[in-house]
């Protein structure tokens, strides 16, 4: 997992978008492996029929080499690729202490409303997934948020109860992580 140990190695955020098709992940990661690139934390998810990849990659050969290492794969799969050099560290996870699930009839502004209220109540969002379920005629918005309550649970609970009054279903679950 760690062939790269050079001091000059640099982290990049590799963003890849394309139509979902078989073999994207396998072929892309094979090309990276063959170029001696290290993988870090990644998120790969299908959004509206598009396959999206955000991937921390570490290379000591510079950005151009990284780009050319995956160029053939990207072209043959019609993937759009974007690379940014980043300041990054592994093994520095912040552990979430609260999970909030939200759902309700889809309407404009629901995400901004919820995340705005949570931000004001001191929530530092670590992970957010949202989806639209239901039907075209009656869409339902679903959101799962994990975060760190920087000001404790009370302000969050107050903020969420206000949202409930506005027709948004909210479940608030403190995360008590077992260590053993």
């Amino acid at each position, binding site marked *: 997992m760690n062939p790269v140990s050079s001091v000059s190695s640099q982290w990049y955020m590799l963003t890849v978008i394309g139509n979902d098709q078989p073999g994207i992940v396998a072929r892309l990661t094979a090309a990276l492996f063959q170029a001696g690139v290290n993988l870090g934390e990644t998120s790969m998810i299908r959004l509206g029929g598009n396959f999206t990849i955000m991937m921390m990659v570490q290379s000591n050969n510079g950005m151009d080499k990284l780009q050319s290492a995956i160029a053939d794969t990207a072209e043959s799969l019609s993937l759009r690729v974007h690379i940014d050099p980043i300041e990054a560290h592994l*093994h520095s996870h912040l552990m979430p202490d609260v999970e909030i*699930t939200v759902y309700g009839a889809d309407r404009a502004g629901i995400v901004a409303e919820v995340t705005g209220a949570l931000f004001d109540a001191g929530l530092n969002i670590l992970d957010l997934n949202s989806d639209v379920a239901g039907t075209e005629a009656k869409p339902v918005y679903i959101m*799962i948020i*994990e975060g760190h309550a920087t000001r404790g649970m009370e302000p969050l609970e107050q903020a969420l109860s206000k949202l409930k009054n506005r027709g948004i279903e909210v479940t608030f679950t403190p995360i*008590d*992580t*077992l*260590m053993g």
Partner: protein
Amino acid sequence: MSVLEVLTYPDVRLKKRSEEVSQFDDDLRQFVADLQETMDGGPPSVGIAAPQVNRFQRIVIVDVSGMLAQAKQRKRRIKSSNNGRLCLVNPKITRAEGQVSGREGCLSVPDYTGNVLRASRITLFAQNTEGEAREYECSGFEARAVQHELDHLDGLLFLDRLVSSNELFRRQVYKLT
């Protein structure tokens, strides 16, 4: 007494099955004292299992009282029974019911936590360091801690039981409808 080294994954020894204890002697009691000291000397935890310190015998310590007291101080209520400090030798779960998800981490798996489904109530049979058998009822967080530690005795880590948040949410919603 001494603090023992905690094995961390990918050390393959963590995947080994531990043997029953048959000798209830001073050596066992000395080991349990060391295991306790290791648990107390490490990062805050609610349990530790013998194989985590390279001893492949069916021995675990579980103690959720510190965590529950701390939560209470922060006005947080954690659903849990509290049997105090449990030193369990040759433990066996004889009855399990309910299923609830919760977040787990492990002294042997640094820098990662994940959701795991566990029984919410268990009946447990175990011996103490004198070889005397006893039965315990555990629920909630304590039941989770016992199940996590007992898994170590079978070479299982919480990583073997991960479920995704999305999966859990789906279960929750299906349960409602």
